[in-house]
């Protein structure tokens, strides 16, 4: 069986969980004899994917299309002001590209045009603060945004919609208000990707086209139509998850087209399956659930780690956005502190709701119990996990959610919202409705006060995550492939 898989990113050039998921899934599929051509917007050369054929969709694209870039100084300035950015992979890629451009090395410049950021790690408010302080000129910001490391701008949907790019449109709005939580030219990138993808696979034969998330749906629909192969669309997250009721109508409509054209839809959880049904009115019979896996890796023993505070540490780690439910974490924290006054709450991450969260913490009078270390990565991330006593993921809407598994692999007990796909596969986690802050607080207190609870959960979780692997996902997917091709 030979399939064409359409992706948007592939490790190490990833911005969200999608790239990691594609790597895990394709590796497990290849082990089962599935031949895969994997098409991504651009192949950088650093990807390690010996198990399949990695195609770049833009190999025909002329360098001349690219905008001249003068943003290196602005980027360097940003790093000086916000050191945590130095470890952001997207950001460093941009800096590298800018540096290379400054040297006139055009080949490296291409890495700058990472076409889109699914889950931007950087924080628009950082830019705003920098702007306000006069550290950055507006033209610098403009420059940075044009390099596709644009960031979420909070605002009402109507305000955001007028900034949505129409494919092929070349003019852009002035100022930092770029609209949706994606890169500036995302829609044109999506269209370009579709066209390039169609050209790239012309004359090839595939038994099936497997497209991951909405950015690849236009390409998937067109290719499947031309080669008369069934289309399978894989939903890792919906626009609804990311933006709630502020969903971008254009993205929603692309999503719907993909779902409607597909012979079969794969959802990463039952939670997502029912959301697809509710939001897009797709028949449940058409949607199969294949839970994500994680890479088996050694759990990290971290009890001896030096920690900065005396009291127990409760961790939120993720983008500080609507989707991740940071305010419920803060509300629960206020209740926990009544019972465990020396508890320390760490909100690690950045995002459009961060200033509001800082205000809320202040309003509740619990500033001295809160830490906001910003975006953490690498060694800092490891340290953050290993100094926490409890990890909480209070997401409002989480198609799957890999972070709790990460915390579990650090031997941390976790609390996950029931509005997450991962809660379906976990037995050894505490579960709570994201809005039920009393119960969330009670669970946090219990984990802090009852060593037996922690011990049993951690020991059993260690065992459990070993069984959440990509092979199980591939086991479920292969029969679906067969039924789609032959049925």
């Amino acid at each position: 069986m030979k399939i064409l898989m359409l992706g948007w990113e592939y490790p190490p050039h990833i911005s969200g969980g999608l790239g990691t998921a594609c790597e895990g899934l394709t590796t497990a599929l290849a082990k089962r004899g599935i031949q895969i051509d994997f098409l991504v917007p651009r192949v950088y050369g650093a990807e390690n994917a010996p198990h399949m054929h990695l195609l770049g969709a833009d190999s025909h694209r002329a360098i001349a299309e690219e905008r001249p870039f003068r943003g290196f100084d602005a980027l360097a300035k940003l790093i000086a002001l916000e050191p945590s950015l130095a470890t952001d992979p997207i950001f460093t890629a941009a800096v590298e590209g800018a540096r290379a451009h400054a040297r006139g090395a055009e080949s490296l410049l291409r890495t700058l045009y990472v076409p889109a950021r699914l889950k931007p790690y950087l924080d628009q408010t950082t830019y705003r603060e920098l702007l306000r302080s006069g550290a950055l000129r507006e033209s610098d910001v403009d420059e940075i945004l044009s390099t596709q490391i644009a960031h979420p701008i909070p605002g009402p949907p109507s305000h955001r919609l007028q900034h949505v790019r129409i494919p092929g449109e070349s003019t852009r709005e002035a100022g930092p208000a770029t609209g949706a939580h994606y890169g500036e030219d995302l829609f044109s990138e999506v269209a370009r990707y579709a066209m390039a993808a169609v050209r790239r696979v012309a004359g090839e034969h595939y038994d099936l086209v497997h497209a991951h998330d909405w950015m690849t749906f236009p390409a998937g629909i067109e290719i499947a139509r031309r080669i008369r192969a069934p289309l399978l669309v894989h939903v890792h997250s919906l626009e609804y998850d990311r933006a709630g009721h502020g969903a971008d109508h254009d993205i929603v409509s692309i999503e719907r087209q993909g779902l409607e054209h597909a012979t079969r839809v794969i959802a990463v959880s039952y939670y997502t399956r029912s959301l697809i049904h509710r939001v897009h009115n797709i028949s449940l019979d058409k949607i199969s659930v294949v839970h994500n896996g994680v890479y088996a890796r050694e759990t990290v023993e971290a009890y001896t780690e030096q920690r900065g505070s005396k009291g127990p540490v409760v961790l939120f780690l993720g983008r500080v956005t609507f989707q991740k439910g940071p305010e419920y974490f803060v509300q629960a924290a206020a209740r926990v502190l009544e019972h465990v006054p020396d508890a320390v709450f760490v909100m690690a991450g950045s995002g459009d709701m961060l200033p509001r969260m800082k205000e809320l913490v202040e309003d509740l009078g619990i500033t001295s119990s809160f830490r906001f270390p910003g975006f953490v990565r690498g060694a800092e991330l490891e340290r953050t996990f290993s100094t926490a006593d409890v990890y909480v993921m209070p997401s409002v809407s989480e198609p799957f959610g890999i972070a709790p598994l990460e915390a579990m692999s650090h031997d941390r007990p976790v609390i996950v919202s029931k509005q997450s796909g991962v809660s379906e596969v976990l037995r050894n986690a505490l579960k709570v409705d994201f809005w039920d802050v009393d119960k969330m607080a009670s669970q946090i207190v219990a984990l802090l006060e009852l060593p037996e609870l922690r011990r049993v959960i951690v020991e059993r979780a260690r065992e459990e995550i070993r069984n959440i692997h990509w092979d199980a996902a591939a086991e479920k997917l292969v029969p679906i492939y067969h039924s789609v091709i032959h049925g």
Partner: protein
Amino acid sequence: MPSVCFYFEVHQPYRLKPYGALQVGRDHEYFDDGLNAEVLRKVASKCYLPANESMLRLIEKTDGRFCISYAITGVSIEQMKRHAPAALDSFIRLIKTGAVEIVAETYYHSLAALYDKDEYREQIELELGLVKKEFGQTPRVFRNTELIYNDEIGRYISDLGFDAILVEGADDILAWRSPNFVYRVPGRETRLLAKNYKLSDDIAFRFSNRAWNEFPLTAEKFARWVHGHSGAGDVINLFMDYETFGEHQWRETGIFDFLEHLPDLLFTHPHWDVLTPSQAIDRYPALGDLSFHRTVSWADVGRDITAWQGNAMQQRALSEVYALGPEIKRRNNSHLLALWRRLQTSDHFYYMSTKSSSDAEVHDYFSPYEGPYDAFIHYMNVMKDLKLSVLAPSEKQIGL
């Protein structure tokens, strides 16, 4: 003349309500009255009332040749009185036929045997008093919570003067022996009746299991299996939860038809009859001593006590509740004592079990909570509040 001996366990715990950390110090109502009432009424209408009706019919029809035995825990009698008095009345009517023997156990269906022997004795005495008062019987036979048993418990019960104890016929304990004979507590005259777990579980667990190669189980087939033991045993002990009839096995599975037909079919073989535990030990001699070198129960595949104390949470909760004993008893407050004892009911610890595989399904089925962790959290919060209130300067504060 070989016999069949039926014993049914009747028990319903006081389930705790979801009790969060934020309630500690504020809320001194621990039990989920609504849920407990609902469960009791449901079980009464699905099981106790219709099953008692069947039993009564069978006893009358056979003129008492069909006879049975029950242990009915004090906490379930209390709850029947409150929420389903008709169920209690129907037990009383049944017992009046004279074909029903009441077996003793602990009033609170607790694990006190393993933690606090004085408390254990008091709970047995409480149950004996209640049985005498409600049913007019003085039990000769004892069964411990969930058939939890070892040699030490055997000697203790023997010292209390019981004539026989019901035990699980665990393979490793019986070894080459058959469960279908009467045994003796080593060094004592007290008899042991061992459950034939194969035949008991055919009814209690496998009856409606479509994946079972003997499905469907008919009364004819079951009687044939029983008769197949002719000449190879004295008494086949069929011990199970009474809720098997109508609750664990729904009416739709045909369990009541099975029950109604079984006695006649058992009696088609001229050599077989049905006895209560006391009748069985009076008729059949003890074949020898049976030593329980480990603690056995009738739960789960392992027939051990890991269902209640298999993980660190359960051990903590158990040691917590029993550690409160001296403090509680010093208070000399009957309400407080009863409250503490309700918290000893084994079900609380069973809900905290993290055992995996097929056992977990059984545990989940019985648990009112979302899982073992919630069960532990609620329980420990209640403990915390109880300790705060017990140690509080004035008990009047919380209305105890």
